[in-house]
């Protein structure tokens, strides 16, 4: 696992055996508002995403947590009527800057979706997709190396090593989701966004993914949207609670779950709203 630790543009890499260094900020949202046409979905959110930590975004359906997540790699751009205001930075660089290449941004901020969405290609081709389009590999051997190491990191390699040429769509749901994680980390992103990655999976597959998230934290900064508060408590170090498009409360996960400051947060965690 320690073999791959090349976070581009970062000066600080946490290794498991090192003394814990105070977290640095990977991404930062300042006064982020998102509009879908005339409807405002997000109201002035300020949130810092800390490097090599898992930040979970929780809140009832329609609270804007997925919207915020999708604005972190500008996936909202694919929706015509969507407009983002405020400032979001990655390593201090405004990602909504006109001169920024969105294609490059998405290579640096990877994403895993709610429903596993492997391409209708072989397992190998699925993982090789990103490195190939970004010109990260030039020879077959390099491609193979990156595919194998990505699959290893996603904890899938042992299960699929004999059938790399079979279609990725033939895997089970949990395996498909790990394939999508392997695909996302193959481009060596700094940040990995996960939009309810376990909501379509059974409890066993979910447990495997959660374990995986914990391991991936060593090399990636992770932001996860989840409906399950237990999951947020299990996997994340930082939690942000959204309600009705507003960021209500954020902080260390333990504090949020044991000692929430805000009444709404408390209500949600106790299961009274949502």
């Amino acid at each position: 696992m320690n073999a791959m630790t090349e976070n581009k543009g970062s000066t600080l890499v946490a290794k498991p055996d090192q003394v814990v260094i105070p977290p640095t900020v990977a991404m930062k949202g300042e006064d982020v508002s998102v509009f879908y046409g005339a409807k405002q979905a997000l109201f002035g959110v300020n949130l810092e995403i800390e490097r090599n930590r898992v930040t979970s975004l929780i809140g009832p359906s329609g609270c804007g947590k997925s919207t915020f997540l999708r604005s972190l790699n500008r996936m909202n751009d694919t929706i015509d009527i969507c407009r983002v205001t405020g400032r979001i930075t990655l390593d201090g660089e405004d990602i909504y800057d006109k001169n920024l290449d969105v294609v490059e941004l998405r290579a640096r901020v990877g994403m895993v979706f709610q429903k596993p969405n492997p391409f209708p290609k072989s397992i190998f081709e699925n993982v090789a997709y990103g490195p190939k389009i970004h010109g990260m590999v030039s020879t077959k051997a390099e491609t193979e190396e990156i595919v194998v190491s990505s699959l290893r990191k996603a904890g899938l390699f042992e299960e699929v090593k004999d059938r790399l040429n079979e279609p990725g769509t033939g895997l089970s749901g949990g395996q498909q989701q790990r394939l999508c994680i392997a695909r996302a980390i193959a481009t060596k992103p700094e940040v990995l966004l996960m939009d309810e990655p376990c909501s379509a999976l059974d409890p066993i597959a979910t447990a495997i993914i959660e374990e995986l998230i914990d391991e991936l934290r060593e090399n990636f900064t992770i932001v996860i949207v989840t409906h399950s508060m237990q999951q947020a408590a299990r996997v994340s170090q930082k939690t942000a609670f959204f309600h009705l498009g507003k960021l209500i409360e954020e902080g260390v996960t333990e504090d949020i779950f044991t000692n929430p400051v805000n009444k709404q947060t408390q209500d949600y965690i106790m299961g009274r709203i949502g």
Partner: protein
Amino acid sequence: MVGYLFLTILVFSIAAFFVGRSAGNRFVATNGVSTHSLPGYHGAFVAVWVGVPALVLLLLWLMAQGSVIDNMLLSTLPATLTEAASAADKNLLLSEIKNVAAGRIFAEPTPEITAAAETLLRWQQIASWLMVVVVVAAMLLAMFFAYSRLAPRFRARNGVEAFTSGIMIACSIAAILTTIGIIASLIYESIEFFKLVPVHEFLFGLRWEPQIAIRADQVAGNGAFGAVPVFVGTIVIATIAMLVATPIGIFTAIYLTEYASDRVRNIIKPIMEILAGVPTVVYGFFAVLTVAPAIRGAGNLMGLATSPNSAIAAGGVMGIMIIPFISSLADDAIRAVPRSMRDGSLAMGATRAETMTKVLLPAALPGIMGGILLALSRAIGETMIVVMAAGLIATLNINPLDSVTTVTVQIVTLLIGDTSFDNPKTLAAFALGLVLFLVTLGLNVVALTIVRKYREQYD
């Protein structure tokens, strides 16, 4: 008379509906909610029982009446007229009698014929009155039967349901039977043709000169029925059409699904639909009057010998015609690729073009292939444009600037003018039709199989 009878059946059915419904109302009034069916169902049940059997009876009667009377009439005629007569002669005799009976007299009829005509008129009168009596009696009987079954717990609703599904089955059977009938007539006439011209000569012969004499006084060639030049012509024109339509159609679909803004899409889509709605005969005008001269002019400029009705003009216009076909099916296929695929690829940092060529098109390819094959079968079967813009002479060549003819054109020309169904010229049309049918059927089956298989992929 028959028209009034249909009206009577309708009136009776409506009356029966009200009778049944009032009975139903009565049940509801006395039994309340424990009545099984709503009053309307009681009404519909009686109406169906009164109307449908009577209608079926009437239709059967009308079908049988003619031939029954004909046979009876023939048996009354003197033996001198019918004894040695063939079936065709008997038919002639009968139609003469019918003509006389209807007052259409061309020559002075013999006394036997006049007498027979009178008999015919008398019998027809009797038959039609008898028909009225039988149908009305059947309706009254059915009304009595159906009404006697009505009761508070009677399941009129289920009865009406059974009738409704019966109607639906009958409708779908009608379509199937028609198809079977068409195929049967094609096959029957083709067999007749292959009795006159051997199959191998038809399928592999290189000369197509079907204009042979069908009457002794006509001047014509000896005839040759080798269909290869016709098939080749069809393939040439269909190929040109596909070469025009496939790239344009697919790129249009890609543009519309991935690149066009909603505003542009809302403009282009209806225009494509207009293209699909243009009558083929108008495309024919366009090919003959606009495209063909333009191509000829361009060919002359470049020093190429171009026929006035070149394959490229007909094929090109046909290609324009099937663009909407391909573009709308390709559009569907690309749209059917789940949004998550597109998002997945974009989230990997792929550009839209990369997403399209590496993920969406491969995923949509089977659907697009299906669309192309359907369009191809359409191109092969298309008639009007080629009748107007392609040639008539079957020459064996694949030069797109030359004139070629197609299967459909030949079918049309073979069946225009004097026809006689014991002559290979006419029958050849059916053999060509059969080949055309088999080819387009095959293409459609393959295309639909591909499309279906592909649909299952994401379900």
